[in-house]
């Protein structure tokens, strides 16, 4: 149902948010199809796979968010966009990210955030690392 051209939960209002520059250590992109298989139960029946469609492209980025000592400075850039300005809210799930990069061209395009994880461990105490799982966003952004 559309009302004033907005579809409620299934559409985005198109408000632009913050810009992040992130340091990527590892980036993997997965493209997957969805298929259904019919097994062969006899010598004369050929097994088949029927293509049903494709899963959304998934990209997983791992990298460094910032140093622990620079967290306050890092979060300052987001203070206008986040009512709870903390590290775990740097990327909000279900928000749309528009990626652009010259050395990571896989990221170019529109993505929707599926999972965002921040982590820090004993071996690298001073770095806040992150993992970001994004699904490709195929629809247009409503202005």
């Amino acid at each position, binding site marked *: *149902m*559309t*009302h*004033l051209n*907005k*579809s*409620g*939960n*299934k*559409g*985005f*209002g198109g*408000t632009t948010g913050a810009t992040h520059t992130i340091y990527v250590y590892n980036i993997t992109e997965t493209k997957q199809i*969805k298929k259904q298989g019919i097994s062969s139960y006899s010598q004369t029946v050929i097994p088949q796979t029927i293509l*049903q*469609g*494709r*899963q*959304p492209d998934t990209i997983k980025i791992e990298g460094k968010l910032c140093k*622990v*000592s620079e*967290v*306050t400075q890092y979060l300052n850039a987001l203070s206008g966009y*986040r*009512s*709870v300005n*903390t*590290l*775990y*809210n740097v990327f*909000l*799930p*279900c*928000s749309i990210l528009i990626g652009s990069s010259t050395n990571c061209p896989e990221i170019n395009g529109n993505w*929707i*955030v*599926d*999972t*965002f*994880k*921040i*982590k*820090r*461990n*004993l071996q690298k105490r001073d770095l*806040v690392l992150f993992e970001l799982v994004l*699904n490709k*966003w*195929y*629809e247009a952004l409503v202005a």
Partner: protein
Amino acid sequence: MSDEIRFRFLKEEKGADGSSIWSSGVTSPPVNIEDVSVTTQALTQIISEGPTPKIIPYGVKGDGGRVASLVGTFSGYSMDTSQNVQMDEYLDVLQDDPKLVGYGISITGTNAKLLLPELGIPGETRWRIEQFSWDRAARQLGQWKFNITLGYIWDATKNEIKLYDDGIGTNTKEHVKFSAALGIGRSNFAAGTPIYSPKITTTMHDLNRATFKTPTTIFSRGDIIHIYCETDKYKAIFFGEIREAKNNSDGTSSYDCVEIGTLLQRVPCAKMAAGLFKPKIKIPNPYKKGTYYSLNAFISKIMRIYASSQIKEYDPGMGVDKSGNGNSPYIPGSEQYIPAQLLSGMNVLAALDNLVEKQCGMHTWFDNDTGKLEYGYLRDIKTINPTTEYIVNTVKESSLSGDFEPDYVILCDNNGYYARSMEGDVRGKSYMVYKIDTTLVDAQLRERAIQIANALKRDASTYVVSFPAGTVKFRDGDVFAGLGDQTVDPVMEWRGGEDTDPTSNPTDEVWQVRELIITDSYTQCIVGSSYYSILDIFQNSLKPVAEMPVLTETKDVTTNNRVVAPTVSE
């Protein structure tokens, strides 16, 4: 003071209204964090069929949506047994007090925010302890090492995951509260007792049902209750009697309820008089030569039987006509008079349904506040407020209109006479046979056959439309002033306006609520067309049959032979 991180333990208690109250407890000794991670997850629906997959984002996941995981040690606590007792106080999360539900932590300590920024704002951000395990390895210096899984406690006052424009309904709650008030009179949400896990199922074809639970036994079997939702505090969403009250092993009570109209099933349509032969209860029609009762006159007569022996002070009234046909003596949509009603052996509700549903093809409803009887095709028109009552999801149900659309229809009546909806050469065309349980003249048979063929060609799709929690203003039988969903494929067509003549004209059809399920986390409507085709009007007397009855005729044939006495000769 040196920089350090400590945990402040919080205790969760359940308040009287079901909300959680957190109170501060002890503060732990300083901790060393070895490993920390916080994962936040989205809730989406992915449809991966067709050339382009589609992602429907719902927001952040509720249960397990944000989870933190910590591994660390408590500073300075080792195998020194004189200190073990104190550690138990922090680490033992199982308590005897039944009011306490669990423990939480919040970060505290000098400059804790700089040392552990991952867990939010010290003193403000709270995490619920989902799992806490600890061990001590004697060989590795005997440090108390813990592994803790935390679930984020979302602060309802902060709009921290706000992604959409205002006014598109994302401020609606995920869970809403319900309460049940005892008594036959009207009440409201505040006067009722809080209930949980409610599920109210309403359908046009049967009495509404409700199930819910309470933490302790409050109601008993036979109690009359109204159920209210916090989003509409003065309009009940269910009015009925508790049919069954069960005590569960965990101390809670479960209740099964039936709509208030069930009380009409307890009064028979009979005069209990002395004597061997009980009088037949019949409403004759015509009651005087040439004078016929109207539909609402019939209904009042049936309801008067209940009114003279009310149960539990329930007064449904004489019936409110929502069809516009109440004053007519004809079966709606036809030229036949309503037949005389034989009521012996039936209870009042059965007699009512027999007349209104089976013979006239309408529906009966009971008002949720007063319990007053209403009857008709369409109930009230409801307008959707798109900021709070937006469609969460739409799914097309499989069409119930039949296996295929025949090219023509053959209709037979009780005498075996039949008519076709299409004249001329029917070679190569598919057909279906219907039988109507009455006798009609040829012209009427043919007209009906054409109506049936047209009704079968219509698209009678139904859709399951989900609304967010707390959408309780729709009732079974209500129609939407405007509803459609362009975001699904195939598109659910937009139908707006008012259906002024549901039995004769399908072009102004609107969406009508056929069934409705209300729970504390969603509202789901099954909507179908408001147009009453001939198949709906004559639903019980019109049936598809597999084979036509063979027309037989008897004919007397006279031969002119005479039988004479035989002669016998030897």
